[in-house]
């Protein structure tokens, strides 16, 4: 119910956001891309979407592993659906295999060709953007890498926001010794050479997905904290806070249900930029080899392969285009949100 009862201010901001076409359509497109990435198994996978064999239907995508013997093949390991498709087509007995658009997953090395990888883009082999230097399909690596990078950034965002909002609000609201203490901590913290320290940590403990998120969150929570502190500090001196206190509201209630909604502009404006910086940082770390452990599909790892294999320009160009498109869209959304929440900032005078 509360979702339908948006207050007029929020409605106005939403309208303003929608009126900024570039940002609005970027947001729509990004949402579609994210939704598609969530069901990437249906689009980019070496498992068939559907197999019709001897009158029975199989849906292998999210199912258990189906051994080759299921379909009358002579092996016990997982069915190679691409070969199965060709076999069925050649046999012409009415059996068929329906493969995803890109019939490869991000981990398998396609070494069927008689040359050495990387293979250039080819529609015939269904490597629409070619393969990397170990014969893995680039589209698959890009799509799953996108999903991982986005998941990483969102998780990082949540960590940073939880820390930033709690500490920032407390600093601004309580002030005094607590505020002073954390001011010093943040000052020390923000003086750490960020990327270098993450690399040192990553060279010490081979990072898993979660440790990398935690390490980056440990180093990255200060920015939002500082902004939250400032805006809480401003809001605290407004009359409505005194009024709430006069009515007997406790600290948690004042901060949670009165001050926080009024700092929503800060909170929301930061989201796209945090996502962009999360993706950028993760890709940089992966590029340098201090990110997620191989063979995790990642844009940074593809970039590093591409720069080592300059005779295979399709590797670099696909990643660069993908990064440019995604980051531009995220930034468009960010600009639009910022403008929707704070139209004054970009008003120009004659």
């Amino acid at each position, binding site marked *: 119910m509360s979702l339908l009862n948006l207050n007029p201010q929020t409605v106005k901001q939403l309208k303003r956001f929608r009126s900024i076409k570039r940002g609005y359509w970027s947001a729509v497109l990004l949402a579609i891309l994210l939704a598609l990435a969530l069901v990437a198994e249906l689009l980019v996978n070496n498992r068939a979407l559907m197999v019709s064999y001897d009158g029975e239907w199989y849906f292998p995508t999210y199912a258990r592993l189906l051994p080759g013997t299921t379909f009358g093949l002579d092996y016990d390991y997982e069915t190679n659906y691409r070969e199965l498709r060709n076999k069925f087509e050649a046999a012409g007995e009415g059996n068929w295999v329906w493969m995803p658009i890109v019939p490869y997953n991000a981990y398998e090395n396609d070494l069927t060709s008689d040359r050495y990888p990387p293979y250039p883009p080819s529609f015939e082999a269904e490597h629409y953007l070619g393969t990397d230097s170990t014969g893995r399909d680039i589209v698959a690596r890009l799509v799953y890498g996108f999903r991982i990078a986005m998941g990483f950034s969102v998780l990082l965002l949540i960590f940073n926001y939880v820390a930033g909002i709690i500490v920032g609000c407390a600093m601004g609201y309580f002030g005094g010794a607590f505020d002073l203490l954390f001011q010093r901590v943040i*000052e020390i913290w923000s003086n750490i050479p960020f990327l270098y320290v993450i690399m040192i940590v990553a060279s010490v403990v081979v990072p898993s997905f979660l440790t990398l998120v935690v390490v980056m969150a440990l180093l990255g929570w200060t920015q939002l904290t500082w902004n939250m502190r400032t805006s809480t500090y401003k809001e605290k001196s407004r009359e409505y806070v005194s009024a709430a206190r006069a009515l007997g509201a406790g600290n948690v209630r004042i901060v949670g249900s009165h001050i926080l909604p009024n700092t929503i502009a800060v909170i929301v404006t930061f989201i796209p930029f945090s996502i*962009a910086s999360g993706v950028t940082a993760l890709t940089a770390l992966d590029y340098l080899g201090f990110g997620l452990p191989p063979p995790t599909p990642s844009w940074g790892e593809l*970039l590093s392969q591409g720069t080592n294999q300059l005779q295979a320009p399709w590797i670099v160009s696909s990643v660069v285009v993908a990064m440019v498109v995604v980051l531009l869209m995220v*930034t468009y959304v960010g600009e639009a949100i910022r403008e929707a929440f704070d139209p004054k900032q970009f008003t120009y*005078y004659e």
Partner: protein
Amino acid sequence: MTSYFVRRFLLILPTFIGVTILVFTLTRLVPGGPIERMLNEAALAGSEGGAVVSSGFDGRGGSVLSDEQIAQLERYYGFDKPVIISYFEWLGKIFTLDLGTSTRYTEPVWETIKSRLPISIFYGVATLILTYGVCIPLGIVKAIKHKTVFDNVSSALVFFGYAIPSYVVGIACLTLFAANLEWFPLAGFVSDDFDDLTTMGKALDILDHAVLPLIAYLAGSFAVTTLLMKNSLMDNLAADYVRTAIAKGMAFKRAVFAHACRNSLIPLATSFGNTITLVITGSFLIEKIFNIDGFGLLGFESLVERDYPVVMGILVISSLLFLVGNILSDICVAFVDPRVKFGSGGSNQ
């Protein structure tokens, strides 16, 4: 004001200790530290036919090390003591400007770092000059020609630079202009035949190698600086004092350059101090991409090779530069803008 800056300078020390103790402890917790790496190398050399590679560490190396020798090595690099003690020993050495000895090159860390500094400084200074040399005029023109074709086209470019990280720009440039079109050399700071070239040839050679990395460096700072300049100039142009100047009959050009421009430079000063850290921190990825033998690449290689004395040495220098750079920024702001008062009620901002 003076007391504020004195306090800021004094605060460098605890911050510095905080940063270094954190990293130092980390490097000590590692499996596969420098001793193990040396042992591996020695074992490898032994199995490859006995060629002694590890003559470096005081002649103690050989194909196989005895326990006693390992203990000796650990003592030599201070690995035999608890972390906190060896940290303070290390810190004591830092205060006497001794950064220790590289485990990889077996020469003093400072020598290793010093040999890379000229290259990094070259790129740092060139980027600095180019950034301000391009961004300030561009910002001015964009502000004056606001909402014209020129402004819109350059805005698209600026936005692009804003959204795309500089290493991606670097990689794209490298692939397109160096690998495919072969307009520029692929990597390095100079060519292999550098020593045989004439002075003019040497300068051209450096320039030839510098074009692409500089584009990548510029892409990083270009957008923010240009927009900052444009927006602050536009704010100033709308201010009453400029309107008054024009109403009095002053030429528009003079009003812009003599009055508005000077005040618009103030926001740029806030980031000026940090540009000195660009020499170190900004160069990591780009030096790796273009294989430039500078400070950043040294840091990267030391990390890969677990050469922790060098890693710590670089951390010392970069964090000190960072800290000093922040203060320098504040000094710059106070210098160009007499209205700014630090230290009085500053904690409320």
